[in-house]
């Protein structure tokens, strides 16, 4: 009991420090870059909710990120809605899409589950590529950031940053609460031993579906926000590469840890951004090497390894 309260205290301290860091970060680091990290951090965290805590490997999460991005972009640019409504619309669309995907995919498990989600995501990719209003391979360009609630000008990078930060914190809180609720406990039970969860009388499919919808909606939240940040949605957001990238982010950061996906996303985004100037064509090779190293040497991911280290030293 004593250790758990200590843990809780430590956790709260970590959260507090990180929260403050996030508040002052844009004065030190370039804000647009930070916003990108936050968007991908939220995306990876949402993905981790499914893979790390329910044990479902979805290979179609790009569809939620991308579809929400396009929906938000179209709502804001073509229908002239305000940014907060655009984000809401995108999130709802992704949630609905998640419900459809989930309904079909959770009937199977393991590789079949992954393949079904991939197939469905490819359909979304095809629709986005062919539909007349998405701009095809040119992407949905020139989405205005607009005014939040009608009076906060988001063209200012700082106000945009704090909006993204607020969205990220809210999303992250939802994930944290989901994991640490009775509902989350059941999800973990399903991950560890599905037949046992069934024999205890839980409607496993319903729990899985609900987790899937939450994960999809939060991915959509990240995608819709990203569209506003960059003022564009492009095919690379719905491409299966993106589904792979989020797996890499989560594994690299630490599967099934709270902060792992955020760290993983920050690492990958920083690499993509920094290496772009310095090593040129070696970016893809370096990313590949990192993935191999991650799988072979530190399988728990960055945060997972650090946690294991703390635990070991704590015992000694």
């Amino acid at each position, binding site marked *: 009991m004593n250790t758990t309260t200590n843990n809780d205290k430590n956790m709260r301290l970590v959260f507090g420090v990180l929260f403050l860091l996030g508040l002052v970060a844009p004065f030190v680091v*370039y804000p647009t870059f930070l916003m990108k990290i936050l968007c991908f951090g939220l995306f990876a965290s949402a993905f981790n909710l499914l893979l790390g805590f329910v044990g479902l490997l979805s290979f179609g999460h790009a569809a939620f990120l991308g579809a929400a991005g396009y929906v938000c972009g179209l709502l804001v640019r073509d229908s002239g809605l305000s940014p907060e409504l655009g984000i809401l619309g995108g999130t709802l669309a992704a949630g609905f899409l998640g419900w459809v995907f989930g309904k079909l995919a959770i009937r199977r498990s393991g590789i079949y589950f992954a393949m079904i989600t991939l197939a469905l995501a490819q359909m979304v990719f095809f629709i986005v590529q062919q539909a007349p209003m998405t701009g*095809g391979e040119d992407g949905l360009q020139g989405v205005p950031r607009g005014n939040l609630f009608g009076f906060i000008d988001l063209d200012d990078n700082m106000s945009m940053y704090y909006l993204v930060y607020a969205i990220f914190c809210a999303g992250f809180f939802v994930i944290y609460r989901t994991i640490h609720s009775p509902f989350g406990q059941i999800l973990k039970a399903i991950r560890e031993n599905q037949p046992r969860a069934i024999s205890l009388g839980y409607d496993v499919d319903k729990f899985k579906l609900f987790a899937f919808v939450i994960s999809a909606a939060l991915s959509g939240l990240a995608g819709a926000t990203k569209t506003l940040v960059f003022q564009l949605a492009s095919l690379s957001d719905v491409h299966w590469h993106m589904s792979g990238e989020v797996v890499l982010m989560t594994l690299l950061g630490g599967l099934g840890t709270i902060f792992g996906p955020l760290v993983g996303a920050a690492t990958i985004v920083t690499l993509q951004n920094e290496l772009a100037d310095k090593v040129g064509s070696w970016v893809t090779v370096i990313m590949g090497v990192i993935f191999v190293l991650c799988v072979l040497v530190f399988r728990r991911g960055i945060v997972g390894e650090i946690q294991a280290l703390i635990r070991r030293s704590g015992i000694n």
Partner: protein
Amino acid sequence: MKQKKLAAAIALMTAIPFAAQAQVSNNVVKVGVLTDMSGTYSDLSGQGAVVATKMAIDDFIANEKPNFKIEMVQADHQNKADIASNKAREWFERDGVDVATELVTTSVALAVMKVAKEKDRIALVNGTASATITNKECNDVTIHYTYDTYALANGTASALTKQGGKTWFFLTADYAFGKSLESEAAKVVTANGGKVLGSVNHPFPGTDFSSFLLKAQQSGAQVVGLANAGSDTTNAIKQAAEFGITPKQTLAGLLMFITDVHSLGLKATQGMYLTTGFYWDRNDDTRAWSRRFFEKQRKMPTMVQAGQYSSVYNYLKAVKAVNSDDTKKVMDYMKKTPINDFFAKNGRIQANGRMIHDMYLAQVKKPEEAKYPWDYYTIKATIPADQAFTPLKESTCALVKK
């Protein structure tokens, strides 16, 4: 009257202090090369475009002895619009970059153009083919320099149709770009008295073209137009040779570069027609420049790389001439100054940002005709600038006064 004079005097007085000092911000002009260093387009632009930019800067410093410094930064956009947009923002906002250039891939070019407009900096587009840049999506801080889909499709289709290739069949990549390439070429074919017998869409990106090529064969068309790009084009050409389509039917590449011919070899590409904005072996000037490029890059330049050099050099000339890196002043100067160098003779930048210059219709040589390495093309015709590009009055760009 008196008041007017007074006002003019005051205006003059306030203007003088600014005119007297150099107006290049921080006395540095920063050129940002944003290109594909690792993906599909790295061969036609990529490292070669960076080398060309460095050459342009070095040559400019040596020839013109400017009183400002010139720096270059480079980045790999990995063909992703969000990475490009992020990088361009960072460059413009934080690093004081004055011009973002190269920008292959349409989504990248469109994204960076918009950031440039917002931050009041210049975008010099070279690698991207899409004609939307100077039509629907145009803005006043962008110059589309080397070529576009209209110039390529128009050049190849009209020349071939005039030479007797009256019946056409299109092999089209199933996305917006492929379709626009096809429709532009088809228009020209029918306008010149030719006939389009049919077309088939192939998935993008494609690897197996057999069923599509068989349709092209069955159509009996004299010319098979390839309305696709990159690896789709090279795969289709390879397989067309295997199916015996060539040399019975003529292949026309609507978007091809000398690096594609180089990697496929003359055996597979012989007899093909294509349009290019630059060929290294065209005259003494082009040869001299290209040999210098070759020494650094070990490859002959594509039109994109040559255009990259020319666009950066002429941008720097404009900065020197107006003694400022102010976007509007530089753009105004560039739009009214003709371009004359090894790349373009009497090139002009139109109101919509389209740089127009002569284009060349080339036929790929037979293997036995090639006398030395990179001896690939015979220039069949020169397409004059005013016919090569979309007539200004047909441009849908809002900047064009009608």
